[in-house]
């Protein structure tokens, strides 16, 4: 599983930037799918986002006080961790300086 972490989820990009970013993401995911190695994917919305804390404290969020948020994930079929890392390196998410892609093995279903 490749998990996208964004440094600042509240940062608003211009429509043009968003469009370019969308295209690049589509090409990236399409390229993985074309190798028949895509298992699943999802993006996460900020609408109605909340954070539930210790002792049942609920806040709107996760903006402001934490440094990074999760933007989405894709699950790929990779022969090795190296292959998964190679997929991750192609992710347009990494164009943002503080952003990261976390590579994790999924517990076999």
């Amino acid at each position, binding site marked *: 599983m490749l998990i996208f972490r964004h440094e600042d989820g509240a940062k608003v990009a211009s429509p043009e930037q968003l469009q370019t970013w969308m295209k690049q993401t589509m090409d990236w995911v*399409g390229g993985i799918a074309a190798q028949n190695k895509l298992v699943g994917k999802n993006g996460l919305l900020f609408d109605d986002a909340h954070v539930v804390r210790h002792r049942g404290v609920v806040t709107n969020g996760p903006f402001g006080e934490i440094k990074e948020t999760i933007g989405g994930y894709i699950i790929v079929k990779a022969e090795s961790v190296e292959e998964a890392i190679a997929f991750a390196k192609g992710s347009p998410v990494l164009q943002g300086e503080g952003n990261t892609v976390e590579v994790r093995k999924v517990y076999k279903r």
Partner: protein
Amino acid sequence: MEEQDLIPHLFRTEYRKIISVLCRHFGFEQMETAEDIVGDTFLAAAQTWGIKGPPKNPAAWLYHVAKNKARNLLQRDQVFRLKVTPAVRAAASESGGPGAPNTPAQSIDAEIDLSPAGIEDSQLQMMFAICTPLLPAESQIGLSLRILCGFGIEEIAAAFLTNKETINKRLFRAKEKLREAAVRIEMPSASELDHRLPAVLTTIYLLFNEGYYSESSDDVLRKELCIEALRLCHMLSDNPVTNTPAVDALLALMCFHASRFDARIDRHGDIVLYAYQDTNRWNTDLIAKGIDYLHRAARGDTLTKYHLEAGIAYWSTQKEDTAEKWEQTLQYYNLLLQLEYSPVAALNRTYALAKARGVQEAIVQAEKLQLTDNPFYFALLGELYTDIDNSKAMSHFGRAMALARTNADKQLMQKKIARLG
């Protein structure tokens, strides 16, 4: 119409209607009976009309005779069931076995409904019954051609490039399976429709492709397969119960493809590749229809592979190479592959990528596909390397030629190599 053409023509248009209506009544258990009745009806027509000349309304004549034959048969059956069987049973055992079911006399006229609405309902029900996952695709298509399209066994054999015996055996086994599984000829309920309809659409699309891509040299026959697929899909689209966005999307897709049917084949019957087609021979009516159905398919929020393929097919009807054409085509392929992977889609996506993002990037991605048993994979690589590294291009075309499954494909690769050498 000439008199000698009348019966073959009616066979093509009326056989499928009468057989569906009769099968609805008799069920798959007695499908042969239904086929015999329709066969006898056409035989009677040939004999009677040959002497007296055809009646004023030949179709109505056929319906009337078929209905009478069915009625006589059912009455004989009923007499047997109600009188003969109990008498035989009573004589055979006094021990009180189960008596014959006391079926009330059925109103045959009401059940064998050859009105336009009755015919349409029967054909739709038959479509759902035949397109069951219980049958392999080739049997579904074979039975569809026979029962829903009224094709003769010989024509079906020609479409599949095989002989009559093979088709007869295939249809026989298919009918047996439908009987064993007690598949009922009825419309699925509204709640079932969503998961039954995809199988019907798959069969229609396969039927279309059988005509569009078949290696059969019989152009007329191939075109008829495409027209039949369009007709069946129209029936689904015209009926309020089965008219879903996916149905309209498939209809749009087939219209777009069919618009190039004539341009794809030259005077000698050889395939003309897209790039060399005479756009004047593209059928603009079908393209307009396709656009219309694609608009209708856009209602609601379902996005099926047919929507995406129709979107791609729409851009294929725009011959001019614009940035928008290839950007849209690429994005449709990106989505299509996420919905359902297929090697063809992966290869076509890579071609669109070359057009939208440049050949260098496409080569990098193409090398990763590793579809090394697919001739079209090497044909694509050959195409991408042409003018960039011609020796590599030649060796890829060579591998494509070695793997090619048809002579036409082999010759095409040979031409590509000759041009580079």
